[in-house]
C-alpha cells in the first residue's frame, strides 16, 4: 500500500528532473540546432548540388563540385598560397612570442607596460591591422620604404610584387598575434614548478642551461598547442588579405577562404562549389584538430 502511494510522487519528481534542465538549456539548444548543427548538414548537401543564389531549382550533381576543384588551377593556387602563409608564419609565431615571454618572465623592468605594448595589436581587428600595414608599406610614401632607402636598400613595391606580397601579409599577421601567443607562453612559464628550477640551480646549472634542460622540455606541449592553434587560424586567413591585396597581385596571395568568398559571394554566387571548398577546408582543419585533441589528452595524462 505504501508503495503505491510513493510511486506517483517519485515519478512526478522524475518528470520535473527531466524538464527543468531542458528549460534552462532550451534557448541555447534551439539556437545550437538551428545555427550550428543544421547548417553543418545543410552545407554538406549544398556541396553536392549546383546551388546558386536566385536559381529556382537546384539539382544534385554528385561529387562534381569536388572533382571540378581538382582541375581548377585557381583552387590549386589558393591551396598553395594558404599553405605558404601558414608555413611562413609558423617559425616567427612559435619563436618570437616564446622569446618575449621567457625574457619577460625573468623579471625585467616595466613588465606590465612591456607586456601591454606587445599585446595591444591583438585587440585590433584584422581590417585595422591590414590598413595600418598597407600604409606602412606604401611603396612611394610609406615610412618603411623611406627608411630602407636611407640605408641603401631599395625594396620591391611590397604588396604590388608577387614575391613580397605574401611575406608582407605574414609580417602584419605576426605583428598582431605575437602578444596573444606571448600571454599563453607566460601562463605556461608561471606554471613551471619553482622547485625544479631551484634544483637545477643547486646542481650548478646556469641560466641558459636550466632553460634548455628544464624549462624548454616542459614548454613543449604548449608549443605544440600554439602551433596547432596557429595552423587552424592560418588555414582560414581571409580578412587581412581582403584588405591588403584582395588576393593579388596575379593571385599571389589568393587564400582558400578568399577564393570561397569570390566563388560563393561575388559574381554569380556559386554556392555549391563554395560549399564543397568549405568542406575540403573543414577536413584539413579537422585533421589538425584531432592532433590537438590527442595533445590535450596526453597533457592531461602527463
Amino acid at each position, binding site marked *: 500500500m505504501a508503495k503505491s502511494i510513493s510511486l506517483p510522487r517519485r515519478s512526478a519528481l522524475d518528470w520535473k528532473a527531466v524538464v527543468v534542465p531542458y528549460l534552462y538549456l532550451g534557448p541555447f539548444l534551439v539556437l545550437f540546432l538551428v545555427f550550428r548543427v543544421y547548417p553543418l548538414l545543410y552545407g554538406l548537401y549544398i556541396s553536392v548540388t549546383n546551388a546558386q543564389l536566385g536559381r529556382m531549382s537546384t539539382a544534385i550533381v554528385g561529387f562534381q563540385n569536388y572533382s571540378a576543384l581538382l582541375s581548377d588551377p585557381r583552387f590549386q593556387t589558393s591551396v598553395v598560397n594558404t599553405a605558404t602563409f601558414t608555413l611562413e608564419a609558423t617559425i616567427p609565431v612559435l619563436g618570437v612570442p616564446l622569446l618575449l615571454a621567457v625574457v619577460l618572465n625573468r623579471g625585467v623592468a616595466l613588465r606590465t607596460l612591456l607586456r*601591454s605594448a606587445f599585446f595591444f595589436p591583438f585587440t*585590433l581587428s584584422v581590417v585595422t591591422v591590414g590598413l595600418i600595414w598597407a600604409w606602412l608599406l606604401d611603396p612611394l610614401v610609406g615610412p618603411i620604404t623611406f627608411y630602407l632607402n636611407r640605408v641603401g636598400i631599395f625594396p620591391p613595391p611590397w604588396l604590388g610584387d608577387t614575391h613580397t606580397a605574401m611575406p608582407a601579409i605574414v609580417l602584419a599577421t605576426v605583428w598582431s598575434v605575437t602578444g596573444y601567443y606571448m600571454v599563453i607562453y607566460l601562463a605556461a612559464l608561471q606554471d613551471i614548478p619553482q622547485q625544479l628550477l631551484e634544483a637545477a640551480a643547486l646542481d650548478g646549472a646556469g641560466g641558459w642551461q636550466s632553460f634548455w634542460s628544464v624549462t624548454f622540455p616542459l614548454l613543449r606541449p604548449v608549443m605544440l598547442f600554439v602551433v596547432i592553434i596557429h595552423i587552424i587560424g592560418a588555414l582560414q586567413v581571409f580578412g587581412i588579405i581582403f584588405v591588403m591585396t584582395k588576393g593579388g597581385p596575379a593571385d599571389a596571395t589568393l587564400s582558400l577562404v578568399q577564393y570561397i568568398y569570390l566563388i560563393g559571394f561575388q559574381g554569380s554566387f556559386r554556392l555549391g562549389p563554395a560549399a564543397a571548398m568549405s568542406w575540403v577546408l573543414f577536413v584539413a582543419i579537422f585533421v589538425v584538430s584531432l592532433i590537438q585533441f590527442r595533445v590535450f589528452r596526453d597533457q592531461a595524462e602527463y
Partner: protein
Amino acid sequence: MSQVQSVPGVTPAKGSATIRRIGRRPLLSGLLLALAVLWTLPSLWALVTSLKQTPSIFKLPPVWIPAPFTIEQYVAIFSNDRSTDIGRALINSVVYAVVSTVLVILISALAAYPLARMKFPGRDVVFWSIVGSLMVPGVINIVPLYLLVYTLGWMSTYQALVVPQLASAFGVFFLRQFFLSLPSELEDAARIDGANSWDIFTRLLMPLSTAALGTLAILTFQWSWNDFTWPLIILNQQSMFTLPVALSLLQTAYSATSYGPIMAGAVVSALPLLLVFLLANRQIVEGVKLSGLKT
C-alpha cells in the same frame, strides 16, 4: 619579492624595485624596451597620420609629430557626403557587439547551469555535442548560414548579425567549467532552506561568477566588435555596415592612398577595445589563455 629581501618592516617603494631590475639586467631590459617601442610604432604611426593635414601625410621624410595638429580627417569620415558613413557604422557596431555580448552571457549561463549542476537524461550527449562543435571552425558554415539567413529574409539586418552568434558553444563550455569549480556546499544548504533551482541560479551561482562572466563578456565583445567575414557577407546595405566592413571599403570610397581618413577610421575602431583593455587588462589576459579553445 622585494619585501622578502628587504629589512622587515621597511617596505621599499615600488619605483626602487624597477630601478634595481634595470640595474640587474640592463642589457635585457634595454633590448626588450627597444623591441616594445618598435612594436608600438605601427599603431602610433596610424594615430599620428590621423591627426595630420593631408599634405603633411605625404611629406618625406616621415613627420612623426603632427604640425599643425588637426582633427579634420575625423570630421571628414563622420560627415555623410562620401559613400561611407563611419558614424552610422559606429552605431551598428555598438549595437552588434553590445546586444551579442549581453545575450551570449545570458543564454550561455542558463545552459551551463544544468550541465554543471544537474543530472538528467541526455546531458552527456548535449555536452559532447557542444565540445565537438568547438572543433568546427565558423568559416565552414558560412555558405549554409548565408542561405538560411537569405531564406529567412534577414539580409542586412541586425538579427542576421546577432542571432547566429548566440549559439556560443565556447560560452557554455567556459561557464560550465567555471560553475564546476565552485563548491556545492552552499547550494546544498540553500536547497535545505527551501530554495529552488532558479533561486540558486540567480542568487547564488550568478553573483559568485562575476569574474568569469566578465571575462566571457570581454571576449565576446572583442569577437563581435572585430568580426569581419560574416558581416561582410550578409550586409549589402551601406546603412547597415559595421565598422570593420565600412573601414575595409573606405579604400574604395576614397582612393586607396587616402591614408588620412582611413587611419582616422582605424583609430575610431581601435578606441573602444583600447579602453576595455586599459580598464580590464588582467581579465583580458586571463581570458585569452582560455580562448584558444575557440577557433
